[in-house]
């Protein structure tokens, strides 16, 4: 509560927010809105600065990158950094690994999670409540806390430096099950009763009737899972020791480790390639994506 009251600063801007658009002195409103616009433009510019610096530095010659005073936009544009990052790292391999790892986890998790969620939401069986509570409880376990034994297990299976080792431990996820269950619960019962009377089995009802109705939820969960895994650093760092099996995210950190002095331009070129697929995909689906985060809520 104390922190809630610690935001009176927002109060000064808030009036404009909470005013329904009725009878108000127009001129005063406009001034308030103008201040909001200017403030928002400044904040947005600052928020986008790191992304701008990645894009612009990636094409900046080394001499300019190291020049003082520093500049934002390159005077001359070059592809040298791009060429260099490809030789510094097995770059295409790392990008491929990222796609296989993040894509594999996403595909498996969507299938396994939706199957389990279906049973928990729409099949009445003994022990359902207890199982649901167990799954909700396991939501609270941070993966960092079980990393050591998970690594031991993966290592005993001989899966270190393999895709099964990277993917299998994440092939199902308590959050995904819980998340999809909420959507399955919301679907009307009548939806499948006709098919049931016609003798369709449970799997057919799941596949042809229930799943098509939750495509947006699957899409949201899929994007989230993909982004989180693509961006994860600790996981590939632990489960891959060979450079060739790393992801783009873990591979880039090799360039900057202790003693690994690398020109900023090359680092930014690598960073640009690392964020490009996600940023492009996000911008394509952003409206739906943000709305689904807002209305359904998701883990970060």
């Amino acid at each position, binding site marked *: 509560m104390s922190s809630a009251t610690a935001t009176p600063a927002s109060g000064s801007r808030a009036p404009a927010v909470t005013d329904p658009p009725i009878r108000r002195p127009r001129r005063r409103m406009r001034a308030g809105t103008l201040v909001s616009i200017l403030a928002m433009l400044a904040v947005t510019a600052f928020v986008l600065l790191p992304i701008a610096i990645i894009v612009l530095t990636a094409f900046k010659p080394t001499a300019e990158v190291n020049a003082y005073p520093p500049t934002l936009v390159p005077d001359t544009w070059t592809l040298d950094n791009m060429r260099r990052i490809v030789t510094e790292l097995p770059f295409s391999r790392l990008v491929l690994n990222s796609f296989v790892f993040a894509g594999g986890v996403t595909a498996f998790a969507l299938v396994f999670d939706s199957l389990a969620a279906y049973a928990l939401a729409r099949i009445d069986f003994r022990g359902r409540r207890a199982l649901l509570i167990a799954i909700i409880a396991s939501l609270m376990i941070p993966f960092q806390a079980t990393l050591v034994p998970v690594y031991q297990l993966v290592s005993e299976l001989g899966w270190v430096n393999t895709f099964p080792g990277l993917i299998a431990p994440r092939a199902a996820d308590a959050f995904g099950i819980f998340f999809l269950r909420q959507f399955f619960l919301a679907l009307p019962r009548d939806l499948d009763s006709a098919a049931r009377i016609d003798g369709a089995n449970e799997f057919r009802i799941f596949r042809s009737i229930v799943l098509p109705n939750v495509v947006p939820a699957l899409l949201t969960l899929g994007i989230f899972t993909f982004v989180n895994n693509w961006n994860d650093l600790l996981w590939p760092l632990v489960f891959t020791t060979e450079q060739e099996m790393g992801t783009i995210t873990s591979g880039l950190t090799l360039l900057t480790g202790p003693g690994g002095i690398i020109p900023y331009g090359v680092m930014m070129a690598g960073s640009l390639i690392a964020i490009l697929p*996600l940023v492009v995909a996000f911008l394509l689906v952003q409206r739906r994506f943000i709305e689904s985060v807002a209305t359904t809520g998701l883990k970060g």
Partner: protein
Amino acid sequence: MSTQTPGSRAAYRAPAPLGGRSSGRPPGRSLLRGEARRGTTALAFLLPALVVLAAFVLWPMISALRLSFTDAAGFGTENWVGLENYSAVFTDAGVRDAVVNTVLYAAIFTPTAVVAALVLALVVNNPRLPWRGFFRTSLFLPFVVSLAVAAFAWSYLIDPQVGLVTYWLSGVGIQLGDVLEDPTLAMPAVALVAVWKSFGFYFVIFLAGLQDIPASLYEAARVDGAGALGRFRHVTLPLLSNTFAFVGVFAMIAALQAFDQIYVMTGGGPYGHTQTIVMEIYESGFRKLELGFASALSYVLLVATLLLSILQFVFFGRREEDLS
């Protein structure tokens, strides 16, 4: 899932009606399928996920608990050492520092991210503000950038020699110096990188929370003669307070898992000043192979996260009550 976002696992606004559905089952179904039959079907659906969760969540949890009472070192024999690892967690100066550092990190990250998100949500929620879609998208964009890449970009921006932000600040008389080598500034720096990446997520949640507040309440307050500030204080604040607490706990859980950008920017330095719990787990578990010790530390993280999660569920429920 992942750390980056500050990755914790929790659901926002998806109150689980625990088993509450069973009462609403149409009676006709039980005629067609017996309970045993349903149990078998359910098991078939659940099996793949349960195998994965049992092998990679449940078993590791038990295994970590056992390891935490041994001197396991990745090879050779394991000896039972009782509570030695746990006492080391709280007496070993380096580890105690990691706990203190994590708390400090959370104390910087949580309020900054949550308040920034709230203020921006209040501004962007104004229907008169133009380009709201653009602002919303831009503020959320950092969320898809990995913390590692964010760390690269910010390291360059605050580089003592060629950093653009360093240069701009020196223009207004602020000498930043070598932030990442500075024992007092390094921690705020790595925490603010996480704020940059995560606040957009909290911002979107606040935005949804604001839009959930019924317009009729504002109308009622207006009829009662409440001014803009009064409506904010008496309608917006109380109705948003549980969302606020929920997001706050969510951010705190995320803060406990800080790793990625610290690994990239400082490696825990200077002189251990940015060494966090997860950094310490990584180093003891995967570099020094002190598995028993790493497991004890893991359990400290686990219990802290559990306590915060329970708090979160409380706010969760309270928020639903508010809106119903």
